[in-house]
């Protein structure tokens, strides 16, 4: 059972990197929209796991994406930020329920799942584009990019989420 868990996460990790790098980084919708679907890894990752390992793993995920897309270490910085903030976001979205041992993402309501995913994406993209553009003179440009690309990422993540939904156990 446990090895199965690791197995699924390793497969997910590598498949998400490949899909991100080979498909979504080349989308260039309207010339600048490249959705970042690899955030789904952080959305799907089991809740009751070692937190330090989760942060380290997210860092590795971001770094792998950076490695392929020549973006220095921006993806790593953004991903490690949402990995660290994930418990706080969950507490905000799911309330005290999330502290219980029996809590599963699949049992939460649709609205809660949606809000959780959206918050992860918006925080990630905000950190990402702030670092990428790296000047507050272009704050409007940052906001525009965060808005447009978050929307695209959200739609694609929801589609992927319903395609490969986490089984209710």
């Amino acid at each position, binding site marked *: 059972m446990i090895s199965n868990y690791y197995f699924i996460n390793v497969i997910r990790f590598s498949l998400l990197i*490949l899909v991100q*790098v*080979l498909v979504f*980084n080349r989308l*260039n919708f309207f*010339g*600048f*929209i*490249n959705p970042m679907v690899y955030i789904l890894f952080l959305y799907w990752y089991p809740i009751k796991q070692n*937190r*330090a390992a989760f*942060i*380290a793993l997210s*860092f590795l995920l*971001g*770094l792998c994406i*950076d*490695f*392929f*897309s*020549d*973006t*220095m*270490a*921006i993806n*790593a*910085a953004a991903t*490690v*930020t949402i*990995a*660290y903030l994930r418990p706080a976001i969950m507490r905000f979205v799911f309330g005290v329920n999330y502290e219980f041992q029996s809590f599963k993402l699949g049992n939460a309501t649709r609205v809660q799942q949606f809000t959780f995913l959206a918050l992860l994406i918006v925080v990630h993209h905000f950190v990402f584009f702030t*670092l*990428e*553009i*790296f000047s507050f003179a272009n704050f409007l440009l940052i906001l525009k990019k965060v808005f447009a690309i978050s929307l695209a990422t959200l739609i694609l993540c929801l589609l992927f989420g319903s395609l490969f939904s986490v089984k209710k156990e």
Partner: protein
Amino acid sequence: MQQIINFVLRYKNFILYLFLMILSLGFTIQSHSYHQSSFFNSSSWVAGNIYQTSYGITSYFKLGQENEKLVEENKQLRLALFNKIEKDSIELDSVQLRYTVNSGEVIKNNYAYPRNYITINKGENDSIKPDMGVITSKGILGIVENTSNNFATVQSILNEKSNINAKLKNTNHFGSLVWNTRTFNTVQLVDIPRLVPLVIGDTIVTGGMSSIFPENIPIGTIKKFDLNDSKSFWNIEIALFNDMTNIKNVYIVNNVNKKEILDLQIETEKND
């Protein structure tokens, strides 16, 4: 001591986060101020081979278009060859060559970021080295930045760090070619003085001041121009000849005399 250990244990996640964040910011800022990091780039063996495999699959879809481009270029080269004025019997042998040319294929192309890099499938094994120029049959593309054994990353002209010497074809006034990160089909030419007469549609080519590109490689045409803030220089918008979203075959140009030129320049500056 006990308390320090307790503190570390209590905040270990935060400390880990802080450490990783500083690490990634360090990598990012280091390459902001200087070159692309020589470690985090897609010319590495793993990334290069994955892109190469994917290129092997997708490259078939655009073969028709690519053939037309190459035939068009061949036509121009034939035209130049047939109309060449016969010189005296001086043959070009490799000693007299000023530039050597290598061919390559783009296996990864970006144009949606402020700093775009292109990966090509030629590397040190094909004697590609950093700071060689990369062009296509239509115009310039960028400068080689990092190389591995079989791959190289190219700093595209669509990169805010890019700065290339360019000139007006008909008047020879030169300026710097930069990119304001906004649209992928226009770049900007700055530092052309106000007294230079400009016409929309004028051709811009690479200048002779660069030790990277040969002179007169096409870049684009003037789309729009206005005066900059100080009212003494033109800001010129250039529509590129290259379609930066659709590039496959490229040529890597090497200036054989580059080392000599650079050494001479360094020595001159030292003597000042």
